[in-house]
């Protein structure tokens, strides 16, 4: 019961919203403003049925997820080593930091027109947008992680005979990992949002963002709401995977 209660509490407001939504939708009687749940739920419970003659809700989600993972992993494979380098060497940071700080505030979607010209419509430009979106959180929290490493740990490693490379492998990386993990978690959330936004732009032919835009063009608001729900659910599931990973892997964090 003690474990169930918080979960029940969490469900209270969504249920409340749905009830209010449904009553308002029955009152307004305009599926363009508030589509009833009797039209939204059928979309959700038939995820494998093709929508608008194209991919199904499930396929669209899978495609979006796949895109986001590719872009995210690409960003991780570049941002983590670069962050480690910049955290390790002051000179590297001096070179890299200004350009990073300039590019960081630019919303990833603003890159879309250029991305289409450089990386072509479809997968290439989307990958780039996701990459831009997830690069900065990972990069910055990697540097942060490097800063959070205690000098004492490095000294202990040295007195126990660690070479520079060994110090890097056995102290720097595990010491920075909790912060990097937090960065990954942030980055995945950002990447997911960027992707859906980018998919709404021209040149895509599948994905949740595309589905929402298509439904918008056809005035099918209930499909838009279903798409939003799936986006939210995937977001919360991926975030809790990261959160569970955080407690499992880095239970020591903040307790040394």
């Amino acid at each position: 019961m003690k474990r169930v209660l918080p979960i029940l509490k969490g469900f209270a407001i969504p249920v409340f919203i749905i009830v209010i939504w449904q009553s308002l939708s029955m009152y307004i009687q305009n599926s363009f403003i508030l589509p009833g749940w009797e039209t939204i739920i059928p979309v959700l419970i038939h995820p494998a049925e093709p929508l608008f003659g194209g991919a199904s809700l499930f396929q669209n989600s899978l495609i979006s997820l796949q895109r986001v993972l590719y872009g995210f992993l690409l960003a991780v494979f570049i941002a983590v080593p670069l962050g480690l380098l910049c955290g390790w060497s002051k000179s590297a940071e001096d070179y890299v930091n200004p350009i990073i700080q300039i590019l960081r505030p630019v919303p990833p979607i603003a890159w879309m027109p250029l991305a289409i010209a450089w990386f072509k419509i479809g997968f290439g430009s989307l990958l780039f947008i996701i990459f831009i979106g997830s690069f900065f959180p990972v990069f910055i929290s990697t540097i942060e992680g490097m800063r959070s490493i205690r000098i004492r740990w490095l000294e202990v490693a040295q007195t126990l005979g660690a070479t520079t490379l060994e110090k890097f492998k056995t102290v720097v990386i595990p010491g920075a990992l909790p912060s990097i993990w937090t960065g990954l978690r942030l980055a995945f959330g950002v990447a997911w949002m960027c992707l859906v936004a980018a998919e709404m732009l021209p040149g895509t032919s599948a994905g949740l963002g595309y589905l929402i835009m298509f439904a918008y063009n056809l005035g099918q608001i209930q499909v838009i709401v279903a798409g939003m729900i799936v986006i939210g659910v995937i977001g919360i599931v991926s975030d809790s995977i990261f959160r569970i990973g955080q407690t499992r892997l880095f239970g020591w964090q903040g307790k040394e």
Partner: protein
Amino acid sequence: MQVLVLKGISKRFCDDQAEFQALSDISCVIHKGEIVCLMGPSGCGKSTVLRILSGLESSDSGTICGSDGDVFDPVHTAMVFQEHGLFPWLSVYDNIAYGLRMKVRKIPQKQIAQKVHDLLSLVHMEEFANVLPHQLSGGMKQRVAVARALAIEPEILLMDEPFSALDPFSRHELQDEVIRIRDTLGTTFFIVTHNPEEAVYLGDRIIILSKRPSSVRKEIEVSSPRPRDLAEPEMIHLVREVTGYVSSG
């Protein structure tokens, strides 16, 4: 037999703009199997001496020789810090095995396991092998830190105020532990402390540094048999003497 001979060690630090002499001329000798306590006023450079010996810092002048008369190699030392410095992401076992796994040691896996188990039982931590450090008490953490340092079989174990952050009970336990380890393994201990009772209880010899720029002000032999009782008048007298030397700088 001498394991360590320091001759005329000096060290300057650049602090922001000002440059100042921390150690001016430190000379002393440490013998095999001795427990030597290093004392001195706060900021006089005790930690600096240990850091130079452990290779974390270099001296500006002077020589450090080992048992064979050659230049001393910091590889033969291990260090225990005031705050245990355990790696929080490694289990007790892995923390102890850390030094053994470094490439320089070339120790096969099986032997490492054997050694770690021996050390765990030496510091009475067998049941905690797979526990992460944050689940241990302060005293237990410091035991693990000692075991980790002992794992690499140092000729001399450097300890920088190792027990000062512990509660009195754990501190006494660990002090006795040090004596027991010295008796069983014959390890040489060089312990920085600011606690005169601890120095008198533990030390075969107490070296007291002067104020900065520091040099050796006094060496006191403590020849009372062990186990020592700090309540005995002789001990009380000694504590008072040491306190006097330290506080008058």
